[in-house]
């Protein structure tokens, strides 16, 4: 491309950019606004449903955490009891079995 053509194309590009910038927003009618609302009313539950999903997830997560705490607590308690019983059982067996003495 010659430098002269380069300048011409740049001028045309500038004109198109100005034309693009000067495009005005159309005036929408009231009917247009209500046509959107009519369409939106047809699926009102859709927007709500999507907000309910995270809420449900949070509720489920809370229940799961609560249940896990109970399970972990009971396991720890059970283990502690086992250890306690284990030692005391050993002593009991030791006192009852004369071969061990």
């Amino acid at each position: 491309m010659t430098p002269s053509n380069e300048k011409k194309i740049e001028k045309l590009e500038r004109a198109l950019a100005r034309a693009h910038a000067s495009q005005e927003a159309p005036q929408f009618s009231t009917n247009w606004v209500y046509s959107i609302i009519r369409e939106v009313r047809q699926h009102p539950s859709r927007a709500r449903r999507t907000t309910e999903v995270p809420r449900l997830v949070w509720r489920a997560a809370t229940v799961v955490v609560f249940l896990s705490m109970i399970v972990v607590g009971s396991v720890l308690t059970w283990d502690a009891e086992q250890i306690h019983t284990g030692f005391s059982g050993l002593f009991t067996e030791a006192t009852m079995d004369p071969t061990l003495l």
Partner: protein
Amino acid sequence: MTVSAPSDEEIIRRVLAGEVDLFVELITRYQHHVGRIVAGHVRRDMVEEVSHDVFVRAYTSLSTYSRQTPFAHWLSRIALRSCYDAWRSVAGRKELPLSSLGDEHQQWAERLLATESHERFEELVRQQETTELLHRALAQLSPENRMVVTLVHLEGLSVREAAERLGWSVINVKVRTHRARQQLRQILEGLIKDSP
């Protein structure tokens, strides 16, 4: 006593809680904003339909609005994607009218290139032929290249800004930017072949 209008966030919260009709308030507030974006990217006869689509999409994805960016900004992204989808749909249906440049456009280009004064330049830019030429030239590009050339070359956004608004990668936009501009320049070159 004056009652202040509810904020966008308040309206969104209430719409999501079930007050669907309050969405009218958001449409009223942002119809000009959306209309201006859409008018810059699609043909005049498509503006109303695409803008309608923008608000319906905004409603259906309202719960994903994070409130970290202004609502207008979030809506702009939906508007741009709706314009892109509209062009993809037109391209998919193989209905690409307004694609060729005629003698009247060549004459317009000659007049524009011959002018030295700024006033005459602005006067020619305001003519209907300019907008028509703009749409015809852009119609020859793919939907992707069209979006990129409009945002980067005609609106002057940076590659990063264009990528963010379109939801595309920066690399993708960068590659397309160069290619799309070359295509547009080739189209315009066709207008000046015979001009002095």
